Structure formats: C-alpha cells, structure tokens
C-alpha cells in the first residue's frame, strides 16, 4: 500500500520500525501536493524546510536518539495558526506578508513530538465562512466533487486529508469550522471542549468560541493528535487545568450501556432527506454496539445561530482592530492617519470580514449593547443550561453535522443567511463550550460525504473519540477516498 493510503498511526509505526524513512514519507506527500494542489488549492503554502526536518529526524533516529511520538509524521496546519518564521496569513490579504516571530503552543507541541509541518492550509479569511470561498488565496475545491465547496472555514485542512495530500491536519472551529468541512469532505474532525487546547498562537476570530482541533481520517488518529496538543497552557488564561485523559487507551472500552440522546427537532425541519436516512442508519449501528438511544430536547438551540451571529462578530470586531496598517500588516497608501486606517482596512479585508466587523461594531455600540450582545450572552447561557439538563440523562448527543452535503461553489455566496445555516447544528457546541466530533456515515446516492455529529460533556473528549472509533470499527465510510482524477458532480 502506498503511504498516502495509510493511517497516521500506521505511518508512525512504520517510521519507528524503520520500514520507511521520514524523508521518503515527506517526499511522498510533497509529490502528491505537487500533483494535486493546483486543482484543489488546499494548501496556501508548502513548508520549504519540511524535507530538511525529515532528514534531521532520520539522522537522529539513526543515531539512536529518542524521538517524539509523532516522529516523522507530516501534518498540515491551518493558516490561521502561527508557525514561527513561516508566513501565516489567516487567508487574508491583510497578513499576506506576515511571518510570526513565534510558534503557537500547539505547533510547539507538535514540533516537540517531532511531527513535520508540511504546509499551511487554505481557509476562509480570518476563519469567517463555511465554504473556504472567502479566502484571499482563492477557494479550495472539494476532492469528492471539485465544483463543490469543501466546507469551511478549515476547508483546506479537510480537503488535503480527504485527498491524501497529508495524512492528518489541524483546524480551528469557532462555529463548526472543523466539523462542517470534515462532514463535507468525508473525514473525522474534533472540536475539543473550550479550554482543552491552548489558543495561544491561533489568530483570533471570536476568542470565547475558537478552539483548535484535529482533522483526520479516523477517530484514532484524532485521539493520537489530541494526546499531543491538549492540556493546560500558562500562556492562555482560558485554557483549562482539567486533567487530560488518555485518549488512546479508552478507545476500545465497549459502548454497552452508553446513553446516546437524539434530538428529534434536529432530524426533521430543513434536513435533507438523504442525510436524515443515513443518520438513522448510523443510529442503528450504535444500537448494535450496545448503546441506548434516548430522546432529548434542546429547546434553546433554535436561537443558537442568532446568538452566534451576534457574539462572534462582536468579538471579531475587536479582535481584528489590530490590523490597522501600523505594524506588521498590509498598509495602503494615504495622506494622513485616518485615511491610512480607512484604506488599509478597506483594501486589506474581504467583504465577509468587513460585513462581520460592521455587524459586531454596531452590536457593541452604546445603546445597542444591551439589546444585542447582552441578550445573546443570555441566550448562550440558556443553551448551556439545555445541554446541562440533557447530559443528566445521556452521555452523548447524536445528530447530523450539517443539514445537507457539500453545496456547489458560488451557490450561497450571494445569500449569507443560507451560508450561515450551514452551521445550524454545529454552533451550539461552541456556545456551550462542549466537545463535538463529526464522523462520516454512508455517502449520498450521488457519492457526496455526509457527517454525523456527536456532542459530549465538557472535557469528555475521550467518550466522543471512543464512540466514534467503535462506530468506525463497524463501518468503513471513513476509509473511502475520492477517486483520482477528481471529478465534478452536478
């Protein structure tokens, strides 16, 4: 089997066993990127030093040095996460020439585990979007159907894993930005609990919602990456000191007796019929695995999109104030300071980003703050209470990740509301701070991937990963790869 067909844990085993060198492994994926990236545009940039790092790891291995648990494994990183000395753009013209002088905490951890960063992946500008069409560097195409979007905002990470241009990737999720593209691209994507993974070095979109997580083919690979990136970071005040469980060892614990809640409201209105069928099929698999399926209610989640589209833009309007042309960003020509601000931000940001900055600025303005930000914060607390109630009855909540499979490029670009509704099932987990995972179920009749979402109690990623892993033991949907050459689909 070629390297690109293998799962990350198997690649690591082969590297450790000396069956393959890190150099060969990195070269293999670089070759695939070389061949396929032009068509997919999953990567904004390939790391120039990846091969060098691979050679260094091979040397150290030869010298008998002890190596990190991911030694030699190529990994793709969303371009909103800082890698020291490598351009990190967040998909924006504003940061086209920005090279951070520091590593994000998760990059530091991956590097010390001897993983090799193979490149930076495409994304919606500042993670604002659900299709990766809002990137300054052009849209990413879905490898299952190149005329369709890969989802977003971590569309580049999802597409590169699906197309096997990298074995695994890292994304970030503010309202579904890991899970929705994972669902559209037929891979596994985990948004950890808020505070589980350090945000230090993640270019902020909405600080109280953002979370970094793994995007992989299997739940086991996600568990492997989580064991490296999760845990308290003194540089992130919002990171949690909660004990990090061993994600890998609990994977095989049987699901017998596990209580899984299903919210009927989420399986009716507005849901694509095929998606509904495939999710119901998946429920049967969990029943066979010994789980008890129970009905639950999440009455406030109907307000989640509304609350999310207040809170996230409010935070974004402030988080993006630093891109003012004074320091490291793009700077437009101007005659005075105010004109410099106007031109820089007018030309440096794309339309969606400007729209959200305006929404947030408006909602935080004096006289509107109470009606918008404070009210949305109240809704947010009620959503969290819904989950608290539900998790008294069940251990996990199951439903679709998205209402439909991947839509076509350009289909929703003129209709922001339709675009925002792509996040309808995912934003609640961000508002409540709970972990959620998307795993592939049976694709649509036209061959488009469909994702199942599991949500769990805060800091119980191990339960999510365990359920997803055992589902994947029973099914093979996650192992399907789009056939090459990539095809379009009407």
């Amino acid at each position: 089997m070629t390297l690109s067909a293998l799962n990350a844990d198997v690649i690591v085993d082969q590297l450790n066993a000396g069956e393959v060198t890190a150099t060969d492994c990195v070269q293999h994926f670089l070759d695939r990127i070389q061949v396929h990236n032009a068509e997919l545009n999953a990567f904004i940039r390939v790391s120039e030093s990846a091969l060098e790092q691979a050679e260094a790891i091979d040397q150290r291995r030869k010298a008998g040095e002890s190596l990190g648990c991911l030694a030699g494994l190529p990994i793709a990183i969303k371009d909103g996460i800082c890698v020291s000395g490598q351009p990190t753009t967040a998909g924006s013209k504003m940061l086209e020439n920005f090279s951070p002088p520091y590593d994000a905490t998760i990059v530091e951890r991956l590097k010390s585990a001897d993983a090799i960063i193979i490149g930076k992946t495409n994304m919606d500008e500042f993670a604002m979007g659900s299709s990766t069409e809002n990137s300054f560097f052009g849209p990413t195409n879905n490898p299952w159907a190149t005329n369709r979007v890969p989802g977003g905002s971590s569309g580049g990470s999802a597409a590169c894993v699906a197309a096997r241009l990298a074995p695994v990737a890292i994304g970030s999720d503010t309202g579904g930005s890991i899970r929705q593209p994972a669902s559209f691209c037929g891979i596994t994507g985990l948004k950890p609990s808020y505070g589980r993974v350090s945000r230090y070095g993640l270019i902020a979109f909405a600080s109280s919602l953002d979370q970094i997580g793994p995007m992989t083919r299997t739940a086991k690979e996600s568990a492997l990456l989580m064991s490296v990136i999760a845990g308290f970071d003194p540089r992130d005040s919002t990171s949690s000191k909660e004990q990090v469980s061993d994600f890998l060892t609990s994977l095989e614990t049987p699901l017998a007796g596990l209580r899984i809640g299903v919210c009927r409201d989420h399986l009716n209105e507005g849901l694509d019929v095929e998606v509904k069928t495939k999710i119901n099929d998946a429920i049967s698999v969990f029943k066979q695995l010994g789980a008890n399926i129970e009905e639950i209610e999440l009455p406030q989640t109907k307000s989640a999109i509304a609350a999310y589209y207040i809170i996230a833009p409010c935070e974004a309007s402030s988080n993006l104030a630093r891109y003012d042309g004074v320091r490291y960003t793009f700077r437009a020509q101007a005659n005075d300071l105010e004109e410099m601000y106007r031109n820089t931000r007018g030309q440096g940001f794309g339309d969606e980003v400007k729209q959200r900055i305006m929404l947030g600025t408006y909602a935080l303005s004096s006289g509107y703050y109470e009606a918008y930000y404070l009210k949305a914060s109240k809704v947010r607390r009620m959503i969290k209470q819904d989950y608290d109630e539900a998790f008294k009855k069940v251990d996990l909540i199951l439903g679709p990740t998205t209402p439909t499979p991947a839509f076509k490029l350009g289909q929703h670009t003129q209709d922001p509301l339709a675009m925002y509704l792509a996040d309808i099932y995912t934003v609640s987990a961000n508002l409540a701070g709970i972990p959620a995972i998307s795993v592939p179920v049976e694709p649509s009749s036209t061959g488009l991937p469909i994702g199942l979402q599991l949500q769990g109690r805060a800091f119980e990623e191990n339960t999510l990963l365990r359920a997803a892993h055992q589902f994947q033991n029973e099914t093979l949907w996650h192992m399907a790869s789009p056939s090459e050459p990539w095809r379009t689909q009407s």
Partner: protein
Amino acid sequence: MEDTVLNPTSSPQSNNRRAVRFDDSQIIIGLEVHVQLDTDSKLFCGCSTRFGEAANSQTCVVCTGMPGALPVINERALELSIRAGLSLNCQIARSTKWDRKNYFYPDLPKGYQISQFDQPICGPGHLDIETSEATDQARRIRIERAHLEEDAGKSIHDESGRRQDSKIDLNRTGTPLLEIVTQPDIRTAAEAKAFLSELKLILNYIDVSDCNMQQGNLRCDANVNLHIPFGDEQIATPIVEIKNLNSFRAVERSITHEAQRQFEAWQENGLTIADAPKQTRGWNDHTQTTTLQREKEDSADYRYFPDPDLIAVKIEDSQIQQIESQLEQLPADLRKLLAEQYNLKSADASVIVSQGRGVVDYFLEVADGCEDSKIANNWIGQEVLRQLNESNQTIEQYPVSPQQFTDLLKLVIAGTLDQTRGKEVLNAMVADCISPEEAIKQLGIKPVDNNELVSLCEKLIDENQDVVEQIQSGNGKAIGMLIGKARKMNPNANPGLVKAMLAKMIST
C-alpha cells in the same frame, strides 16, 4: 469652536451676571489619577517595565499585539491594587473582570485597551486630607473607584512641521496603571494639591508606586466646574476635564485658572451645565492657560465589552486579609503617633512623615534611644533633612546610623556637648563616617574643669569692663558678647556654664 454665545452680552441677564462676584462661587473638583504600579513586569506579559530603555526593546508578541498572542494577568499588579485600595479605605471587589475599551490609535497595538469597566477591583473609599486652613480639621475626599488597566505606548511626532514620520515606542505599552477616581468633593485648588500629595505619600509608603511625575508614573486629570449663586438659584457651569497635568503645581494653577475662566465665560454667555456638553481642555504650561481639545459629544464610543481572552478574577477574603495584615502604618497613623506619643507639634510631625517611612523609622529609633523626642525632632527635622537635601541622599544613604545619632544626642542632652559643638561633631561624623567619640577626639573637644572656667571668666571680666557695666546697668543681653568671646578663647567652654558663672560673678 469656542463657547457659543446664546445671550447677547448687553442683555439684562448679562448685566445681572456681571454683578455676581467670583469669590461667592464655589469650585467643584473631581480628580482622575493614573498611577503606574511598581511591578517588575507588565500587566499582561513578562516584559520589563524599566524606564528609559532603548525604544521598543521592552516588548514581546503580547504587548505589541501580534496576531494570536494572548494576555495573562500579572498577580503582583492585583496585589498592589488591593493594597492601594485598602489604604484608601476602598471596598475590595470579590469578583472583578476585564473589559476591552476599543479605539484606534497608532500607539495602541491591539486597537483596544484592556481595562475594567463596570467591576473595578476597588469600590468606594475615602481619603482624609489635612488642609492648611486654620480649622486644622481633616477633609474627607470620597473615592468613587479605582481600577486596573494597561498603559498605551508613546507616539513621538515630528514637530519640525516638515511632515516627517511619526515614531512609536511600545516599551510603555502594557505597564499596569491604577486609575483612581474621586467624587467631586474637592473644593479648592489647594485641596486638590493636598489630596495628590497625600495620595502620593501613601502609595510611596505602601510600595505601590514611586509616583514619579517626571517619568509619568503619576498622571492627573481634573474635572472642574463652578456653582454660582445667582438670585435664588445656584448655577452650575459646564464641566471641563483638564488634561496633561504633569506636576502638582500644574494641577493647582490650572484649576485656579480654569475656575476664573469658567466664571468669566458664564458672565459672558450664561451657559450652564444643562446647555453645554462636557469639554476636554488641555493645560498649557507655557501660557498657563487651558485650551479646548474636544467636546465630549465628539468623543469615541469605546464599545466596552468583557475581554474574552481573560477569565474573571476571584479575590478571596483570606487574600485580602493577608494583604491587610502586611500593610504597614499609613502616613496619617504615623502623624498621629508622633503627635500623641512623641508630643510633636502637628506641623513637625507632618514634616517628618512627609519624608517617607525611612525618616520616620530613623526618628523613632533616635527619639526612643535618647528619650527626648523634642531634641530628636529638632536635630532630625533641621540638621538631617538639610544635609540629606544638600547631598541629595536618602535616609538609607545617610552615613550616621540611628545608634550613632542617639549617642550624639545623649551627649548634647547631658551637656557634654553644647548645640554648636554638637553640630560640629555631627558634621565631622557625616564627613568622615565616624562615631561621635571619634569626632570629638578629632575636633579636640575635652571637658573644661571648674578652675579653668573660673580663670576664663575672671579674664573676660577684666578685659571687658565696658560690657560688664552694660550688664550691671540692666542690659542682660549683653552677656552674649562675653559668651562669644569665651568660645573664641576656649572652644570647649560650655556656653551655658560660662553664662551661669559670669552672671554669678558680675552680680556679686
């Protein structure tokens, strides 16, 4: 855009206004004081807060607002804020949070300042100040709140008029500031100055801030308006916030100026607080005037909201108690101690206390050691403070230890050394870092025995018959001339003993 004229200046009302005297109006003053906390590192990162380093050398990804960087609270700044709050009798919040104050400025790297909007770390409190007025009664100035925030950087503009680039130094960005806001309880410019002096003294005593105004470690804005009796009414003039006050003198003078200006403006246009928005005016030290900066209506909407990068701060009772238990005596306590236990006049006590804790401790040790607080006060309040001032030293650098000083004063009290000789000894002790005994030896001071004293006095009387006659004819003061001559003949002769002996010999 100076004040708009609503009423013609020649109207009957304006003539009535001209009849009001300035001295009948009352100045209402509230202060906002920014104090830089004396922490080693900045409020949200580990960068040094040292002053005067090369531009932008004390910066990191956090305080320069790099994408992805996150703030982490400096616990020491919280502790110092609590200490300051307790010293100002403030209620300390059990839960406080951080808010973003959003505005664009080139020396504000994140495009927002992290501050505290509606849950300041210190709630209401008060500070009693002594005023120089005859009543001698303390005035209580209420504190509204004190909150923590990060400082901005420094913009350096080219002032040559040649449109050169502006430069930005971010060394100061993120240094912790405590903003202390008073109620409008201050009534005179002198009280404003007294408040600031006492505040500065307290913050020095409790090691919260050095309040060095040259380095911008204490900055003050004053909100000023007038209450003017007018017929049966009390008219309030529009409130003005005076900025750029970088010395106590500027505070005092700008308030005096601004009160007069507001009075004249009101006489001119009759505008009251209800007619005009709050103004910001800047104090110009050269012209000694305030000039309009902006009307508050134009001011930015800061769009405060809770900073999602920081978690709320919980302050436990035990933490407050611990800080309280470590709090040393405040200036007011020490003034009381010196006045009541050491019998100093209140003005003398104030002089000692205003020098800082070191001088107070020095005084206490010497006063206890020599068991004469008056003499200790005379010598320390005059000689020591003068010497420190001349040599620009702190009491910690003063070469005479409290024990040596005590030994010296004991000799003076015992009469072994008179005042003059005593000061000579002190000067020698300071100059050569030696003990009183060594200084006495060096100066050749030795006791004069009775026989020597008798022959000295006899000689004086013989040689100065004219003076003796003056004394005998009732001019008692003339004896001073003889004492002066005695000192020249034998510097060791104790003037008191000489005087007593001369008086005895002349009268008999």
